[in-house]
Structures are given as structure tokens and as C-alpha cells.
């Protein structure tokens, strides 16, 4: 019986391999409407392939992706709020443990890096981290959307769009600046403004990291001859790892700079000066 099963498996496997190879050889690549150069250019610039947002305006596909991701996350959060959280127990189950670890990770990151003021920071990096991680993974699903030219296209990661990355980078900087002003007034603001390159570095790091994944994946998908097996590895590498790494990097940077900006150290200096 075992030998029979093995033989059957081998036959099916070899047939499938032969069929796919035949497919690769026999099927002519579709006459693409857009060259790889154009496609790569558009992935960066988003000048074409706009999507109508409820007929109000034409936007980049990343905006629609952003709203879709937000909708999915909020729906999930609402379901959890209604059905799961009221049934929380002191000794947590697996799902409760996952939720607690999720919240606890960002809360702990905020508390560790910013011991003085961390309530708002915890909530902010929780949202930003969840958004970066889940919206990057969202790209893997390849949900389709029709652009204004009537062509179907896969929804990209929201932060692979420069506008999305700038929004998050600049917002993180504003959060740090706000924390500095609230905690230390003008001196705090001056300390944060000193790092004026921070919003740019944050935005472009995010954009560059996610865009590189998108470009390589697009490149692999573009050529049918390398669109077997390889996209899985590339997709997992560039999407999965980037989502985790970029989440950690942005949250860590924001919390570290926020902690530095909100640190109170005026009185010490005065005392030291008086002693000297």
C-alpha cells in the first residue's frame, strides 16, 4: 500500500511539473500594454493608474489600500471588542494571550524608551506599528482593483506610496515634537527641531524599504518564466520581513526620540551650576 501511494504521488507530481513546463514553453507571454520600465516608473511615481475614490477624486491605489486596511483592522477590532474582550479571564487563553502580547509589546516599548510620558506614545506606536505591519502584509493578498483606465491591478502596500510614507514619517515627527513641547516647553521643541532631518529619514526609510520589496516583486511577476516558485520566496522575503523590520524600526525610533524629548532634566543642571 505504501509503495502504491508513493508511486501515485510521484506520477502526479511529475505530471504537474511537465504540465507547468509545457505551459511555460507553449504559452506566449501576453503582449503587455506596459513595458517593465514604465511599470517600475509608475510603481515609484504613481502618475498613471489612478483610482476613483467614490467618484470624488482620483487617487493613487495606495490610498484605497490604506482605507481598505483600516476598514479590515477596525472591523476586526470591533468584533474583538464585542465578542472577545468581555470574556477576558485572569488566566488568559491563546487568543487573549496574543492580544495581550500585541498590546503589551508596544506598551512595553513605550515605557522602556520613554519612562516619563508614555501613555499617548504607547497608543500611537501601537496604531502605527499595527498599521505598518498589517498594511505591508496586505500586499500579499493581491486584492484587485480597477483603475480609471479600466485595467485591473493588485492593491499595493499603502506605505509603498511616497505620500503614505511621508504622512507617517511626518506624523511621527510631530508626535515627538508635541511630546517635547508638552514636557519641556520651548527647550523641548528646540531639542526636537534640532533633528530636522528626522521626518525625512523616517519617511524615506519607510518608503524605500517597502518600495524596494514592491519593485522586486513586480519585476519577478512581470516575467512569466520566473513566476513559478520564486515569487513565493521573494514575496515572503520582501513583504514578510520588511513588515516586521519596518514596524520595529519606526516604533523604536519614535519612542526613543519621544523619550529623549520628554526627558526632564532642567533642575539638575541648575543645582549642578549652583554647586559649581
Amino acid at each position, binding site marked *: 500500500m505504501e509503495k502504491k501511494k508513493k508511486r501515485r504521488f510521484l506520477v502526479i507530481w511529475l505530471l504537474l511539473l511537465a504540465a507547468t513546463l509545457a505551459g511555460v514553453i507553449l504559452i506566449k507571454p501576453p503582449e503587455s500594454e506596459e513595458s517593465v520600465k514604465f511599470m517600475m516608473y509608475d510603481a*515609484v*511615481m*504613481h*502618475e498613471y493608474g489612478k483610482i476613483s*475614490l467614490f467618484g470624488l*477624486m482620483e*487617487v*493613487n491605489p*495606495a*490610498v484605497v489600500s*490604506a*482605507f481598505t486596511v*483600516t476598514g479590515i*483592522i*477596525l472591523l476586526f*477590532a*470591533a468584533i*474583538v*471588542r464585542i465578542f472577545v*474582550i468581555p470574556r*477576558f479571564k*485572569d488566566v488568559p487563553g491563546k487568543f487573549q494571550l496574543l*492580544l*495581550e502580547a*500585541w*498590546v*503589551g509589546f508596544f*506598551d512595553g516599548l513605550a515605557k522602556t524608551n520613554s519612562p516619563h510620558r508614555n501613555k499617548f506614545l*504607547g*497608543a*500611537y506606536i*501601537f*496604531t*502605527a506599528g*499595527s*498599521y505598518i505591519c498589517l498594511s505591508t502584509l496586505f500586499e500579499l493578498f493581491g486584492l484587485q482593483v480597477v483603475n480609471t483606465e479600466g485595467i485591473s491591478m493588485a492593491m499595493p502596500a*499603502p506605505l509603498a*506610496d*511616497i*505620500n*503614505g510614507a*511621508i*504622512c*507617517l514619517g*511626518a*506624523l511621527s515627527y510631530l508626535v515627538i515634537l508635541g511630546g517635547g513641547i508638552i514636557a519641556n516647553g520651548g527647550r523641548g521643541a528646540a531639542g526636537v527641531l534640532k533633528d530636522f532631518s528626522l521626518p525625512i529619514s523616517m519617511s524615506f526609510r519607510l518608503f524605500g524599504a517597502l518600495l524596494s520589496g514592491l519593485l522586486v516583486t513586480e519585476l519577478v511577476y512581470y516575467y512569466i518564466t520566473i513566476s513559478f516558485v520564486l515569487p513565493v520566496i521573494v514575496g515572503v522575503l520582501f513583504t514578510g520581513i520588511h513588515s516586521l523590520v519596518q514596524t520595529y524600526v519606526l516604533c523604536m525610533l519614535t519612542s526613543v526620540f519621544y523619550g529623549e524629548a520628554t526627558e526632564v532634566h532642567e533642575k539638575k543642571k541648575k543645582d549642578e551650576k549652583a554647586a559649581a
Partner: protein
Amino acid sequence: MNVPLNINLQQILLHLFNFLLLFGGLYLLLYKPVKDFMDKRQSKIRQIIEESEKMHSEAEEKKAEYEAKIAEFDKYAAEKEKEVLKEADEKAEKKLSLARAEAEKIVEEARVSGRKEHDRIVESAGEDIASLAAEAAEKILSESMDSTYAAFLDAVSGGEISGKQG
């Protein structure tokens, strides 16, 4: 103006709007309730730990109190024991001296009565000896008289009586 990289302020604001929507929603629906629950549980555990520590310290205090009481009681018991032993010794000594006096008295009485008895016995023994001596003498006398009389009778009757008696 042509902005490099096709940066679009309107779309940045759309992303910002989207993010703020997500921030508010996630904060209210997930972050705050989960964190509140965790904080509440933490404070509950802290309270339990504090209570147990308080109970532990109370128990330690009580233990120390009881140990002090036990030590005090031991001291009291030792003192009491010493007192009782002393009292018992005194009583025993008293009883012993009384008994000794009693014994001396008994011995003295015994000695006196013994002496009296001795004298009485010696006196009565003298009387007895005298009477015995008298009896013995009488007996000797009677025996000698009887044998003399028998000899006389034998002599008279030619030995008939002594032959019959023999």
C-alpha cells in the same frame, strides 16, 4: 509647481485622515480595553501580594508575640518550679525533723518501757527461779523420800511391791 516624486499634499492628508481614523478606532476598540484589563489585573495581583505580605508580617508579629509570651511563661514556670521545690524542701525538712523527733521519742519510750520490762522480767524470773528451785527441791526431796520409803517397804515386804511395780 512640479513636486518631485509626485508628492501630493491632498493624498498625504487623505493618508493622515485614514491614520487618524485608525488611531481613534484602535485606541477605543482594542488598545484601551485590553490595557485597562491588563492594568486592572496587575493592580489586583499587586493588591493580593500586598495583602499576603501584610498578613505575613502580621503573622510574624504574632509569632514574635507568642514566642515572647512563651519565653515569659517559661521564665514564670521556672520561677514557680523553683519556689515550689523550695517550699517542698522546707516542708520535707520540717516533716523530717518532726519525724526524727517522733522517732527519738518512740525510741526513748521504747527504751524506758524495755528497761521496765527488763526489770519486770528479771524480777519475775527471780521469783520463778525461786519457785522452781523450791519445786525442784521439793521434788528432789519427795523423790528421795519415795525411794527411801520404797526401799523401806521393799525391805519390809521382801521385794513384792517393787516386783509388782516393776
